[in-house]
């Protein structure tokens, strides 16, 4: 048996459907659970964030105007692709977190199932969260939830894959696009997941993924005037106030979450109420 040298992957960013290196040329070292070198992922800069927001903004209108059925199918397609590469994710989770194989397998399974769960929400949200309102006058009046626009997501550190899916799926299912800052300690799952996205019919720019230091990127994200909302679940609570203050400049909708629920989707939607007269 020969000692074959592995062909290792260079982990890059995922912006606008492509895999660029960070414009800053910076990387940082990621180690395995037992301290061995694993990879040098990109240490994304504020300029990478800026480019990612441009991509997300450009993609938003067409993603939003895709039918809910179509968005649901694409989310389901992502789940299919993830299922096909589950062993790779199991390996990466074990490598970086050192958990038992069964636990890693469970996380991947839950991630796939969660995607399928969110996929099914796409064409049900409006019926549940919308309303026809009986106003006192000759008007037809209805309220519908609509996507908010571009959402900045700070993914939790762990669980690296499940936490990531739980952060992005509720954001995009309604028609938002997003820029995600992946887990700093365990970014491999996020970047491998980008490869899943690239083969999932997901339009370029709907999900953009950055790796690097959250403390460095999050304030830029919070102050970015072309981001409409943020999920800051993945930031330490001591930094929350600072981000919320920065986000106030354009009144970003900023949330933290504890679990997967429809309210998590609705958090990044706006209710629109339409009036029209009823007459001959």
């Amino acid at each position: 048996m020969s000692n074959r040298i592995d062909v290792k992957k260079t982990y890059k960013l995922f912006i606008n459907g492509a895999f660029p290196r960070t414009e800053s040329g910076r990387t940082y070292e990621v180690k395995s659970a037992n301290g061995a070198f694993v990879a040098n992922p990109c240490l994304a800069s504020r300029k990478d964030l800026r480019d990612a927001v441009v991509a997300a903004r450009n993609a938003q209108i067409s993603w939003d105007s895709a039918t809910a059925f179509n968005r649901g199918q694409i989310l389901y397609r992502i789940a299919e692709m993830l299922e096909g590469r589950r062993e790779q994710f199991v390996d990466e989770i074990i490598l970086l977190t050192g958990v038992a194989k069964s636990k890693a397998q469970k996380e991947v399974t839950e991630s796939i199932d969660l995607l399928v769960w969110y996929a099914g929400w796409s064409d049900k949200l409006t019926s549940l969260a919308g309303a026809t309102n009986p106003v006192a006058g000759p008007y037809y009046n209805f309220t519908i939830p609509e996507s908010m626009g571009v959402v900045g997501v700070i993914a939790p550190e762990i669980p690296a894959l499940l936490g990531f899916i739980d952060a992005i799926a509720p954001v995009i299912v309604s028609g938002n696009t997003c820029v995600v800052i992946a887990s700093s300690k365990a970014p491999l799952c996020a970047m491998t997941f980008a490869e899943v996205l690239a083969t999932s019919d997901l339009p370029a720019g709907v999900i953009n993924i950055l790796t690097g230091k959250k403390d460095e990127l999050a304030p830029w994200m919070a102050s970015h005037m072309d981001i409409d909302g943020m999920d800051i679940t993945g930031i330490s609570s001591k930094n929350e106030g600072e981000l919320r203050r920065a986000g106030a400049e354009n009144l970003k909708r900023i949330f933290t979450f504890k679990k997967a629920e429809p309210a998590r989707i609705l958090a990044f939607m706006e209710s629109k109420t339409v009036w029209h007269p009823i007459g001959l």
Partner: protein
Amino acid sequence: MSFEYAPAPESRALVSIKPTNGHFINGKFIAGTKHFPTINPATEEVLSKIALGNKTDVDAAVKAARKAYSSVWSKMSGKERGKYLFRIARIMQERAREFAVLETLDNGKPIRESRDIDVPLAAAHFFYHAGWADKLEFAGLGTSTKAHGVAGQIIPWNFPLLMLAWKVAPALATGNTVVLKPAETTSLTALLFAQVCQQAGLPAGVVNIVTGNGSTGALIVNHPGIDKIAFTGSTEVGKIIARAVASTNKSVTLELGGKAANIVFDDAPIDETVEGIVNGVFFNQGHVCCAGSRLLLQENIADELIAKLKVRVAKIRVGDPMDKNTDLGAINSKEQLLKIRELSAIGEREGAERWSPGCTLPRKGFWFEPTIFTGVSQSHRIAREEIFGPVLSVLTFRTPQEGIEKANNTPFGLSAGVWSEKGSRILWASQQLRAGVIWANTFNKFDPASPFGGYKESGWGREGGRHGLSAYLKGIGDE
């Protein structure tokens, strides 16, 4: 002789105004320490003195609200809470004429509007929310909904009583207690509402009203005993509040500014469109956050429509707000008048064409003629900034897409109007517009059952309807 309408004044004798007012805390009127005058903006007459709420007052109000919450209100069944709201609604209807007169005297809005819109809608908000109080588990927010506790509410001067109703009714229905601060220039109807609470037998401390200015508002926003902040006012102050509560667990809803586009397509029902434009921007002297202050006309009908609009605007009756035939009343304050004047002057300097019908304005008081600027482009300040006065900026567009792009080209997103007789175009435009309320072939319609609130920098959350309830119940981010 032509048909001049003789003065038809509403009777001022319907209200008695105390020379000095205090706060309403724990079910009682408490004397203030410092006071400031509140004036009738139509005459500059001092109506009364209003107490300037300080830290002691706010502390006392929050304490009373907390006690009422923990000892009475949170323990009462929704069914019983609802009955108090029904009582309040009824008493407001009984005393509607009194409220309307007081509102017009203190605010400067025409009696026709306070009588036909503000006061009946305020009572309707209490009726609507009264019915929710024992049905919250069906509101789609989970079966074990929870109130926040003590809500601090800060409201503006443009619809003093109506905004009070928008805030207080859902807060009480969902089981919160309230510390409310009316706007500095318009406290009188809030204090009359305090009397209504007394007449309704509302338990002490459930509603507390502390009058004052911005400093009093800041005391409420920053008070550690307050769980929820609800604010209606300018985007500027909204951002200050958002920053102030950033490091706290306070839940916040904000109803802020706007620069609504009113888009008219070439197949619009033209006469009703003209009415809608007038109602859109001259209703309540243009002191409306959702006012249709940017008129976007399809180019091929622009000249015809502007001509018709000018004829119609020339018929607007400007003057004594107490006259039942007045359409446009007084500007609420000198400060606001100066702001409107300043932005209008900027509009002229920037090259837009200014037009007014040339009304005779009363000599005393704060007045501004209905004003139309034509030849406005997106980069003019009068097309971007909220003027909050009777000033319309007219822009044109060629294609539907261009109209929508111009409409959405703003950091605001509160409301928008669309005028067209073509159903598919109405639905398309309603879908494309990035605003929380879309009025299609109508404008400035409000109803307690209809959610109201903005996208983007026009605010957080909704008021009214099933959607408005979530503002006062714990949910995402409120653990």
